[in-house]
């Protein structure tokens, strides 16, 4: 900073110059605005959670809520529970995961271990990107067009699971791909140098190294698809009875119960809707916690 002009200045200039007022004002304004947006974003989150808990939490405290269905109850009778819908939500989510996760992991393995920059790999990456943006209602319509009109299957929970598969695959592919990429090449080389074939290296070394992250990703993805409503609206009918058969007949799920009971405009309907909302949020929370718990248990330890 010491230039010739400094030497010509009066004896003792201030060591640090003040920033001029307009710059300081702009800086402060920006800080306030930026911080404000964050608060603005949290407001609806807090408001929404408080609403759901205030309106619904009292209803889930009853043991019946978790153990009984709404079978035989009219829209004016309190009581019963959402067991039938919980079962449906879990069943549909798990069937979806059983189909989607292996495919998604194989796709991710292809992209990271085999495809590299090949033309097919580019096409796959592009497709996964597009697939992650396909609205759930379009996925539902596709499965409707494929399974129900074309193949003549009845509406069923299984059809719902298939639609959810389309929504889950891109999520799991992305997570797994990122995780496989950060597995150090040194581990692959170490395995190759021991005379381990490539596929075994991937299955026994690379995937296990990334496993804890994959588990977290999968449980987040399950939590996400369990809250999807559009597929259940299009692909399966609502029932107040318990149904364990994914291929046969109507099956309730929490989102479907909410959209159906929403039309019951009395206190009973309101209790069921908001109670189900709390239940759904609890289940999603449990899956998120479960994911991080399992991943913590399986994560790599050094001691």
């Amino acid at each position, binding site marked *: 900073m010491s230039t010739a002009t400094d030497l010509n200045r009066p004896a003792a200039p201030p060591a640090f110059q003040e920033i001029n007022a307009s710059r300081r004002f702009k800086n402060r304004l920006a800080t306030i605005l930026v911080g404000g947006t964050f608060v603005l974003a949290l407001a609806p989150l807090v408001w929404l959670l408080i609403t759901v808990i205030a309106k619904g939490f009292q209803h889930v405290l009853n043991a019946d809520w978790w153990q009984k269905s709404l079978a035989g109850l009219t829209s004016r009778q309190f009581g019963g529970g959402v067991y039938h819908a919980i079962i449906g939500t879990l069943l549909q989510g798990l069937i979806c995961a059983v189909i989607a996760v292996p495919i998604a992991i194989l796709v991710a393995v*292809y992209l990271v271990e085999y495809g590299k920059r090949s033309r097919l790999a580019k096409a796959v990456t592009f497709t996964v990107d597009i697939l992650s943006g396909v609205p759930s209602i379009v996925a539902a319509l596709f499965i409707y067009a494929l399974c129900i009109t074309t193949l003549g299957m009845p509406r069923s929970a299984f059809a719902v699971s298939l639609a959810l598969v389309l929504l889950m695959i891109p999520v799991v592919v992305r997570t797994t791909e990122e995780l496989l990429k950060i597995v150090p090449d040194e581990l692959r080389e170490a395995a190759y140098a021991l005379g381990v074939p490539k596929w075994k290296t991937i299955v026994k070394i690379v995937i296990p190294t990334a496993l804890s992250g994959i588990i977290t990703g999968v449980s987040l993805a399950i939590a996400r698809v369990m809250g999807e409503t559009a597929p259940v609206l299009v692909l399966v009918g609502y029932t107040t009875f318990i149904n364990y058969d994914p291929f046969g007949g109507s099956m309730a799920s929490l989102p479907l119960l909410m959209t159906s009971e929403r039309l019951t405009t009395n206190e009973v309907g309101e209790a069921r809707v908001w109670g189900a909302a709390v239940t759904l949020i609890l289940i999603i929370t449990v899956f998120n916690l479960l994911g991080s718990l399992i991943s913590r248990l399986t994560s790599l330890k050094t001691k």
Partner: protein
Amino acid sequence: MSDSDTVGRPGAPGLARGPRGGAAPDTAPEAPISTPKGSGGTPTQPPKVITRPGDKIFKALTVGSGVFVVAMIALIGIFLLIQAIPSLADNQANFLFGRDWDADPEGGLAFGVLDLLLVTVFSAVFALIIAMPVSLGIALFLTQYAPRRLARPFAYLVDLLAAVPSIIYGLWGAYVLAPALSPISTWLNENLGFIPLFATGTSNLAIGQTIFTAGIVLAVMLLPIITAISREVFDRTPSMQVEGALALGATKWEVVRTTVLPFGRAGYISASMLGLGRALGETIAVLIILSSTTSHFGFSLFDGGDTIASKIARAAQEFNDPRGAGAYIAAGLVLFVLTFVVNAFARAIIAGHKEYE
């Protein structure tokens, strides 16, 4: 386990897995090695690296899964198209420019998608206009302003917004937010009603089942999406640039304006486009919030109506006649194409920027 045969036993048999009878004679000019096109070797044997059956099968599985995913996106388009064509052929209205939707096969199909499309785009763009600046602020806050130690938990809170199912957003929007917005929308309508945007619409402002409410709820849903990607991009601003600006005596805001924003602009725009795609396709929240109407869309925020997605979902339980369903599938195809284009555009923006890798 075909791989166990030659392993680790003392004096393991030779390297060769097949009979070596005269293969690759020593006089071959250059042994055929890893390139398939390499010359040499005995003519009967393809000059390829030996691949184990396990490797072949496993690779085929992964490639197959990749092809499956690519085929899936094509199948979605094809199946929707096949199912839509018969209904489109029977359609007595202009599909793309008709404004009325009658998908009841009795008395003839007459469905036009224009009004649905307009409501879809209008509400999604409205949501985006609200969400973009707020997300920008949040992303800057989380990457540049928040204390390092708190940045992660704060980001987690914002991500929680994405974990809430859209049906719960819908319920909250329709039963809690809508009445709360009523004074604001009434005020806007009374004082700024001369602007078409705030003109009296088809929806009752006291109940609030308006595009205004739906758009705000959609905006909240977009926040975590746009924020997440913008955050990632802003985080990658080269520290050299930031330090360079700091060394010149720039204030925090000046650093952000001169380095972070220019660097992250394309990523932010791409993120916003992805958000737009999400808003266009959102179904259940819009379905719950918007009041259905038979009047035409009047470009007012205080209109009710239906987006393509909510219209399909509203009718979904009554899909029994394939021709009626075909009409909705045709609308779904329009939505698919729309979101496809928006998403592809968003990805194209980011793909052009190698520095984000």
